């Protein structure tokens, strides 16, 4: 890309972009692709990180272990209907294996050429910081954009608290707008999503509020921007997003 688009151009792209040509990796609990809301859609990839200790990525079956990943995908497609979504199941009953599973799936997503990695989860353990740093650095060098949820009130959490990551909370600033600049700490974007009706496991829906879905909303907005302005690197896009969020407010 030569030169930077103006914040106004980014606001236009956020309003008019469709996500066409943008690949979004959803690192979550899986995506129930047979859900009626996703009729006619396909997953670009469907990977599951096996929990047998070997941590190898295996092919998924289009299901969601909980429903959370389905809701996240529903929000992303609601905002960016032409984005291509891939499912990388990293959330499962074995909590202790989560950080390693996330690292493996993130690397896989980067290798497969995903432009956006949506992480609607967090980890507060300082001991896991080097693992997060390693894959986030790789994603950054590959030009991928990482969007991560965070609602930590007083403690750091990862991946949202890395400067190259777009950290998103659901707690709005009270200023109207789809996306707001939060001028405190490393989580710089708020995207209120109160009472969003989202698809859930089993073909149903739930009325949900939380940073998980705020991050998904911003991933959708990032996909919209990238469909109009491909080639923005992670720091360019984050800087533009901050200014666009302020402008929107």
């Amino acid at each position, binding site marked *: 890309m030569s030169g930077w688009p103006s914040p106004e151009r980014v606001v236009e792209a956020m309003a008019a972009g469709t996500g066409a040509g943008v690949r979004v990796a959803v690192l979550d609990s899986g995506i129930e692709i047979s859900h009626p809301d996703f009729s006619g859609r396909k997953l670009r990839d469907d990977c599951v990180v096996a929990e047998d200790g070997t941590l190898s990525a295996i092919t998924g079956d289009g299901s969601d272990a909980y429903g959370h990943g389905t809701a996240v995908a529903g929000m992303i497609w609601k905002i960016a209907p032409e984005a291509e979504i891939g499912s990388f199941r990293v959330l499962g009953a074995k909590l202790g294996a989560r950080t390693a599973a996330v690292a493996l799936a993130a690397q896989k997503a980067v290798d497969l050429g995903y432009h956006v990695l949506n992480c609607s989860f967090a980890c507060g353990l300082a001991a896991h910081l080097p693992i997060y740093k390693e894959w986030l650095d790789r994603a950054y060098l590959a030009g991928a954009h990482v969007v991560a949820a965070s609602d930590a009130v007083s403690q750091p959490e990862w991946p949202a608290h890395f400067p190259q990551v777009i950290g998103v909370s659901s707690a709005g600033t009270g200023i109207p707008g789809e996306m707001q600049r939060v001028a405190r700490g490393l989580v710089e974007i708020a995207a209120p999503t109160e009472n969003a009706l989202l698809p859930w496991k089993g*073909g149903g829906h739930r009325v*949900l509020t*939380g940073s*998980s879905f705020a991050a998904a909303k911003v991933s959708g907005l990032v996909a919209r921007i990238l469909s109009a302005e491909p080639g923005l690197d992670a720091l360019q896009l984050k800087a533009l997003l901050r200014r666009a969020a302020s402008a929107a407010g």
Partner: protein
Amino acid sequence: MTQHALQLSRLAASRVGAVFPTIGADEGTLWLLDEEKEELVPVWNSGPHAEEFVGKHRQPLSAGLISVVCLTEQALCENEVYRHAGQDPTLDRRLGVLTCSMMAVPLRAGGELRGVVSCVKLKKRTGDPDPSGFSQSDLGALQAAVAQAGEDFP
């Protein structure tokens, strides 16, 4: 669950319990992860049915909205709970209530996930109007109380 952890959890529960009336919650529960980190165990509940499931129920991390909060370490609020497909009505039926809204917030101490605090708004009698749902600001208030409670843990 060690005796020390239980004592601390009671202290944390008193902090969290104080916020429930201010956000209109009918009752709430403090769930702690077991040592294997495979199940959530309710160690305190503020409602009239506490004896029916505190110490008796175990929630495996393989299912349920509270497990989702545990796995994502992100707070979640769900309104219009009983109206939507996929909601497991077993516990409601057992207790004779309808859960209308629920919130759940991860409990961390020193950065480590220790459990989840959840609270609900209930419809106690058929024919009663649904209570208003929890708001984003209710979620923020619960998160702040739980963060404070996390500081009571070792």
